[in-house]
């Protein structure tokens, strides 16, 4: 088990005039090897929830265990937790600061593992750091020779985002959390970032947790989805099953992929075929079913 959450609640400014109940009694288990999606209307508490996972927000009530580490105030293991559980914030390009792309990507590596010195014999040599940065850059599709020495501020939006992601995966986290990784990109940029995330699942980070506003993205990638509304988990299941609850989702201002809508409409007409994320496969099964029924 990768992440185990029990009865987690969270209130912003519990004593002030701006009190805001952001999470209510969340219980959820995310298994190792999952590609887990979180979806919900804006302000529903998605970002608040995932920031608990690497102890950026401490649980106020309830318990949380991530990669075998209990998240509690004052725990000595929080730094190693953050190394194991990488977090890509929404618009991560706004956290870049390095003079060069290489320096920026190496930041996390140096913080978590450190440079090799007499006091820190398990640290990395300059050569090793360079190798790791190069590897991370290649994983996000940036050529080391071309980009390593450039200023991150002179890159395009999509390239900046890749640099920011490289800066997280450089430590090879077991769990990778991404908060709306494709927001603000054009359709091609979106596809590329998602392809990149799928590749990361195969290479560095076995467990992926992704927040998204886009049901198509969820349908295409996730094995399981949690729907959050007003700080509560209202549903948690596979995308295929989720899309059969069309009305409930519409009530939560969430849309489902057009193929799923067609599937539900056909089901009402008595042609009940399973949803498939590949619309061609879906069309084929429908055609076969109709042909079979006509026989």
């Amino acid at each position: 088990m990768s992440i185990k959450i029990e009865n987690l609640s969270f209130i912003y400014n519990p004593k002030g005039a701006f009190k805001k109940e952001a999470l209510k009694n969340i219980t959820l288990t995310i298994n190792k090897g999952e590609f887990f999606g979180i979806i919900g209307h804006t302000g529903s508490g998605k970002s608040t929830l995932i920031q608990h996972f690497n102890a950026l927000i401490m649980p106020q009530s309830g318990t949380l265990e991530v990669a075998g580490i209990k998240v509690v105030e004052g725990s000595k293991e929080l730094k190693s937790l953050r190394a194991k559980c990488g977090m890509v914030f929404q618009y991560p390009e706004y956290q870049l600061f390095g003079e060069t792309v290489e320096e920026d990507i190496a930041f996390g590596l140096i913080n978590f593992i450190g440079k090799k010195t007499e006091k820190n014999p398990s640290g990395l040599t300059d050569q090793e750091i360079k190798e790791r940065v190069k590897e991370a850059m290649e994983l996000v599709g940036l050529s080391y020779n071309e980009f390593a020495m450039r200023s991150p501020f002179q890159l395009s939006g999509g390239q900046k985002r890749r640099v920011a992601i490289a800066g997280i995966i450089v430590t090879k986290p077991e769990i990778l959390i991404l908060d709306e990784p494709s927001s603000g990109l054009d359709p091609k940029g979106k596809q590329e970032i998602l392809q990149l995330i799928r590749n990361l699942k195969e290479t560095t980070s076995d467990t992926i947790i992704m927040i998204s506003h886009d049901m198509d993205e969820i349908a295409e990638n996730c094995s399981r989805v949690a729907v959050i509304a007003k700080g509560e988990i209202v549903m948690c299941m596979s995308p295929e099953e989720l899309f059969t609850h069309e009305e409930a989702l519409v009530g939560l201002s969430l849309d489902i992929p057009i193929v799923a809508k067609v599937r539900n409409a056909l089901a009402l007409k008595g042609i009940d075929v399973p949803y498939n994320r590949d619309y061609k496969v879906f069309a084929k099964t429908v055609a076969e079913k109709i042909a079979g029924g006509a026989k």
Partner: protein
Amino acid sequence: MREFTFGQYYPANSVVHKMDARAKLIITIAFIVAIFVVEGFFSFIYVAGFLVFAILLAKLPIRAVVKTIKPILILVLFTAVLNLFFYQKGEIIWEFGFIKIRDEAVRFCLYMAIRLILLVMGSSLMTLTTQPVELTDAIESLLTPLKWVRFPVHELALIMSIALRYIPILMDEADRIIRAQKARGADFESGNIFARAKAMIPILIPLLVSSFRRANELADAMDARCYSGGANRTKFKQFHIGLNDVMGVMSVVSLIMLIITTNAVLF
């Protein structure tokens, strides 16, 4: 983070919140004058009474107002202690080695501490009950006569309101960046002072970059809406002087009169 902004607007439905911001500004200034007119210890009771009455009228929890003096408490204590030892007038009432404490010094320190605390609480009461935009509008309105000497009153007010508006945004942004860098293992708490100063770089640079970006976006947005300064602009919220405003100003004037009479009687 958001809690930190001291004296930040505290919404409530009260007469004080609804008062004309110009009247509140004048009352606050008069109140500050009153604090410094006081000569006898006794008059502080009037001033404090006035303040407590205003807080009750504003329906603010006393805690919210008292909390605003926290940031200056150190300053008050520090200056009070320094003055206690170095103020040179009056009779020596206590002596220990080279430390001499005089009666006048004790009086002076107490006065100063009380004045500072009343001053901060009084002006916080104003910012707690007035939206920043109203406040800058009020300043603009009160400074209007200066337009005759070609002083750019409107521009000044605009700069102030933009600055005030952006403080909470920048604080949120800083908060976000701090968390993002913490996720990359940044450590702001350990190490000596140089290490800590260096640890600030990954926060300050992105913050600076985003401030410039925001400034540019704002300038573009203003351009796109053909913003061209103060002439002939109308306000979304118009000021209206009401009975409450007149009564407020009159009561603070009476407060000053009361203090002056007390001073005259006692000295």
